[in-house]
């Protein structure tokens, strides 16, 4: 803990950094089949500074949730390193990681214990870390409930008495009560109604300014991402294929996959028809990924080179891309 705090004020060290992070699962595809490696995340490099928001986007099965689990310290990476404030995550205990990184999950209906009151849900991290007396804990719970906009009268309620938006606020209060620096949000609004989603997104933005938080924001909804993120990391089949400033990526997406993702966003503009997406079928089988560039079977701009050679990572300052078109 002390070791972690001693360096956290240094401005040059990113709040969160992934160095060549990979995660390989050994999967059995049948009763008698040999175990096969499934590369869920492959060689991901990224870094975020304090107070910034990085969005990780991609289709289901692209490895974004596996990456989130690794950021939370729930899953040690097979290879590579994750650094929090410059300290490798595997060198500190899980309790110390929990003080720095906290999650907010997708479904506030299943992520809250239905048998516990709101007070005991929000104060649980304090109990685990043995912080404060009973009364201090209660005061702190009330303080954080105010912060996330939950009325005090709900303190002894149970999750089933709350609406979806209120539950997600409880999840946010629980995540914030340890004063973490980084919040990993895994699709925090996709289970909510549009009007409630707007409330939660506004709240997340307020909290970020107030508490100087860093968010790793995982989502498949690019409209939400554009609204919130400073950085965008686009993942495809476990690989980070495009990474850059959100404004750049949204204004001028370079990778054909990012372009297709952006075209698929249905904005509420009735004068536009449905976009013609030529992406074909869904993700290929990750157990036997395509040769060369993983995206070439679905890519509208693929050439023979794409099916033979893996594209090299092209790195510039604040930007990286993996595509033969830009090699």
């Amino acid at each position: 803990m002390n070791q972690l705090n001693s360096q956290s004020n240094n401005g040059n060290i990113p709040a969160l950094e992934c160095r060549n992070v990979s995660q390989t699962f050994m999967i059995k595809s049948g009763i008698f089949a040999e175990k096969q490696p499934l590369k869920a995340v492959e060689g991901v490099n990224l870094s975020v500074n304090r107070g910034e928001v990085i969005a990780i986007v991609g289709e289901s099965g692209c490895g974004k949730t596996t990456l989130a689990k690794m950021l939370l310290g729930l899953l040690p990476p097979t290879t590579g390193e994750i650094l929090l404030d410059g300290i490798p995550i595997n060198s500190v205990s899980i309790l110390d990681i929990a003080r720095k990184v906290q999650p907010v999950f997708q479904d506030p209906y299943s992520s809250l214990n239905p048998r516990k009151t709101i007070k005991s849900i929000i104060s649980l991290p304090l109990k685990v870390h043995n912080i404060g007396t009973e009364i201090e804990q209660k005061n702190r719970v009330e303080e954080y409930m105010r912060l996330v906009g939950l009325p005090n009268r709900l303190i002894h309620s149970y999750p089933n008495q709350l609406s979806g938006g209120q539950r997600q606020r409880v999840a946010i209060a629980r995540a914030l009560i340890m004063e973490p620096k980084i919040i990993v949000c895994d699709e925090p609004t996709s289970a909510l109604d549009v009007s409630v989603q707007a409330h939660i997104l506004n709240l997340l933005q307020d909290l970020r300014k107030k508490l100087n938080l860093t968010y790793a924001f995982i989502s498949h909804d690019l409209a939400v991402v554009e609204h919130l993120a400073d950085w965008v990391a686009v993942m495809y089949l476990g690989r980070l294929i495009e990474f850059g400033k959100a404004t750049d990526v949204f204004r001028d997406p370079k990778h054909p996959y990012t372009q297709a993702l952006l075209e698929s966003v249905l904005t509420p503009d009735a004068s536009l028809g449905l976009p013609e997406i030529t992406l074909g079928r869904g993700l290929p089988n990750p157990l036997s990924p395509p040769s060369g560039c993983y995206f070439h079977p679905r890519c509208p701009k693929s050439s023979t080179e794409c099916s033979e050679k893996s594209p090299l990572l092209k790195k510039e300052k604040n930007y990286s891309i993996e595509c033969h078109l830009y090699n």
Partner: protein
Amino acid sequence: MSQEIVLEVKDLSVDINVPAGTLHAVSNLSLHVKKGETLCIVGESGCGKSIASLAIMNLLPRRASLTAKTLALEGRDLLSLSEAEFSNLRGDRIGMIFQDPMTSLNPVFRIGNQLEEVYMEHGKGNRKEARERAEYLLEKVGIVAPKERLSQYPHQLSGGLRQRMMIAMTLMCDPALIIADEPTTALDVTMQAQTLNLLRSLQKEFNTGLILITHDLGVVARMADRVMVMYAGYAVEIGTAVEVFDNPNHPYTRGLIDCIPVPGRRKPGSKLGSIRGIVPALVGDIKGCTFRNRCDFSITQCADEIVALKELGKGRAFRCILTPEERKTTLQNPGITQ
């Protein structure tokens, strides 16, 4: 496009008995769908959009009771039908597509069997003809190697493929009306656009009426010919997609549209619009406008009367005491009725 009306609903109300009293899930809903037309019903959870569609298909839970002045499919009165007659109608004249294709396909039967069953059950022909129709439709929904796919089980297909199978299945008997309840919510963005494109082109080709139920205004804007916005069991705004999105007349519609982040429209980091408060409980007697507690423009009269739907002609209507012009001049007095 033929202008023939496929489905006509007038004054449909659904009440559900709950321990606390009577829940008014749908109140005085009127709608019609023409051949080859897409009507999108949009609203947040609990607004009654799914219950309304279940009522049309006579699939309401037992505790629910339905009243309606008219409920007619292709001119045939549905209110007088027996359960057996209704059962014949579903899958034949009305097709259904639900949100999660994995729960609507039977996991222990091959896809082919399930598609053929629909055809043969409704007496359209023998197994050979059913198989031919299934293969034809699978090609239509863009599935390569339909013969092999027909002998597979649902778990062997991806989510997008399964939803295509569902679309093919609903088209087996060439229905007059398809009701699709959140058909793409479980799919990825890329699959969503493709699946909607497919649904739209097939619906136009087969000249089928389509009721698309969704909470996603993006889907509505791109798919709908006409839109109906529902709130707390009431239709609050009806009109063509362009009119409703460009010029919403009801404060709820306006609020919903402002809630959505649109790439490029706002400066990143700025706040989204939002609707304060939550959806009211629909149990017991409903007095006044159901939206008044969340509305920035509510006046004292809003609490007094149930607001009637104001017809503006050409199928455009909204349910608000004030017109948009009147709302502009009304002083914003939030919370007057709270």
